């Protein structure tokens, strides 16, 4: 068993990147991602990590450098938040279209305006369809672990996709947590060196990033879509292998006291830990409430979600992003789509909660459950509310 130490989650993430022996790091500092990149630049400057560290002039360039590096066969890492991701967004679609297994940690932060540095998922939702494998982790240990998982997964010849680890800004990035570090020998066994399928090399010229005529574009997108969906069993496989190594097993959809629950709360990210406290409190009162946590956002785990939720009477989906003028929050909208075709399914109530760092406490979850249960009982079928807004 590895050493268990107290460290800031951002530092743990950077240490994991170092343990993966990356070749190229390119990032532009933005709150709350900064500590990860700062620590990596120190590691490179001190000679502890033999990698190229590119100080670029923008996030657009940061990911562009990673695309170039990955195309040349390097293991590349970047990291951003919010407005930085917005500037980078053009290149996110290119990285996945070219099937380059870059890793990005996204320290989730609100998109402006109004300007805010605090945490929610509006940045991640902006690039929902960018074609990367996307995880939402819940605590520092999961961030650390998923760095290894992501490289092994993304670089697998049967996957070859870039991966995003979504970790909540400040709530995770700036908090000191106990992290169980994994010995380097074990990492070296778990994560073999990157062997690219195709790479830019003068000895064997190929073209990457060519244009596609309308007569072939649809075929390229179908190939990409099928490949991303087909990565699902590989994700399970890599999680299983990681579990065997560390004893920490991960699943696309995780449940807590959900089997016999009448009302389920569904969360993504760190807010799930608070929700589990609320579930315990309500269980003590004898209320059959449970929790479902969505860890894998893309490829979306349709079947696992159905298995975890279909038996319940009510499903309260917590979104951390407003889809302005849309069908409720983006998570709820996808959950509805996933369950729509089922004959017997729970009533869905959608709360947008904790946007831009507004605290959501266990008692808030209890209030949300109360409200949803009453309103569903009264016949409301499309409950949607931005929770906790002063009237």
């Amino acid at each position, binding site marked *: 068993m590895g050493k268990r130490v107290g460290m800031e989650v951002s530092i743990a993430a950077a240490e994991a990147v170092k343990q993966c022996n990356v070749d190229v790091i390119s990032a532009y500092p933005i709150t709350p991602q900064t500590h990860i990149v700062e620590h990596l630049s120190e590691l490179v400057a001190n000679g502890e990590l033999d990698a190229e560290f590119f100080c670029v002039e923008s996030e657009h360039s940061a990911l562009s450098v990673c695309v170039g590096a990955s195309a040349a066969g390097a293991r590349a890492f970047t990291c951003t938040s919010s407005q930085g991701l917005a500037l980078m967004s053009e290149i996110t679609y290119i990285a996945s279209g*070219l*099937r380059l297994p870059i890793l990005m940690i996204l320290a989730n932060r609100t998109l402006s305006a109004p300007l805010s540095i605090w945490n929610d998922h509006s940045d991640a939702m902006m690039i929902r369809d960018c074609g990367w494998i996307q995880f939402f982790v819940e605590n520092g240990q999961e961030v650390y672990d998923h760095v290894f998982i992501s490289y092994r997964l993304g670089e697998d010849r049967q996957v070859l996709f870039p991966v995003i680890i979504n970790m909540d800004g400040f709530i995770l990035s700036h908090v000191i947590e106990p992290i169980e570090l994994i010995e380097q020998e074990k990492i070296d066994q778990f994560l073999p060196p990157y062997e690219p399928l*195709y790479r830019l090399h003068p000895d064997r010229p*190929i*073209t990457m990033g060519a244009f596609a005529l309308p007569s072939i574009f649809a*075929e390229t997108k179908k*190939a990409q879509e099928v490949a991303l969906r087909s990565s699902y069993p590989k994700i399970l496989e890599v999680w299983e292998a990681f579990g065997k190594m560390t004893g920490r097993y991960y699943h696309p959809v995780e449940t807590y006291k959900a089997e016999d629950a009448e009302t389920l709360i569904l969360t993504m990210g760190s807010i799930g830990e608070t929700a589990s406290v609320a579930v315990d409190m309500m269980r003590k009162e004898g209320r059959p409430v449970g929790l479902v946590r969505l860890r894998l956002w893309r490829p979306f785990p349709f079947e696992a979600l159905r298995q975890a939720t279909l038996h319940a009477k009510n499903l309260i989906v917590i979104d951390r992003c407003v889809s302005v003028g849309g069908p409720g929050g983006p998570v709820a909208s996808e959950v509805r789509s996933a369950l729509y075709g089922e004959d017997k399914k729970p009533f869905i109530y959608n709360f947008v909660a904790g946007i831009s760092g507004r605290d959501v406490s266990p008692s808030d979850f209890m209030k949300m459950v109360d409200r949803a249960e009453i309103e569903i009982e009264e016949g409301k079928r499309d409950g949607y509310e931005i929770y906790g807004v002063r009237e």
Partner: protein
Amino acid sequence: MTKPEYEWTWKEIPVGNVILEPGNASQYRTGDWKTLKPVLNKELCVHCGLCYIYCPDMAYNLNEEDYYIVDLYYCKGCGICAKECPTGAISMVLEKEEE
């Protein structure tokens, strides 16, 4: 490419849409963009080669009789050759529909 792009199925496309065979842009028929095609009057041609030099698509090639002849598979019909020809030997005429 062993066959034109409109015959490829999604299963045949290399990962990341990589093009493994260099130079396959030569298979791209840009000639079907045009409405006007250049026609050469050999009586007026002085073999200066300006059409060849100016052609942005390198569609002109020298034939065995030392005339520069346009390859209509690539010619987009831009008319630069006709504009630059110092003797007015090239005229742009409407392509017939059967072509």
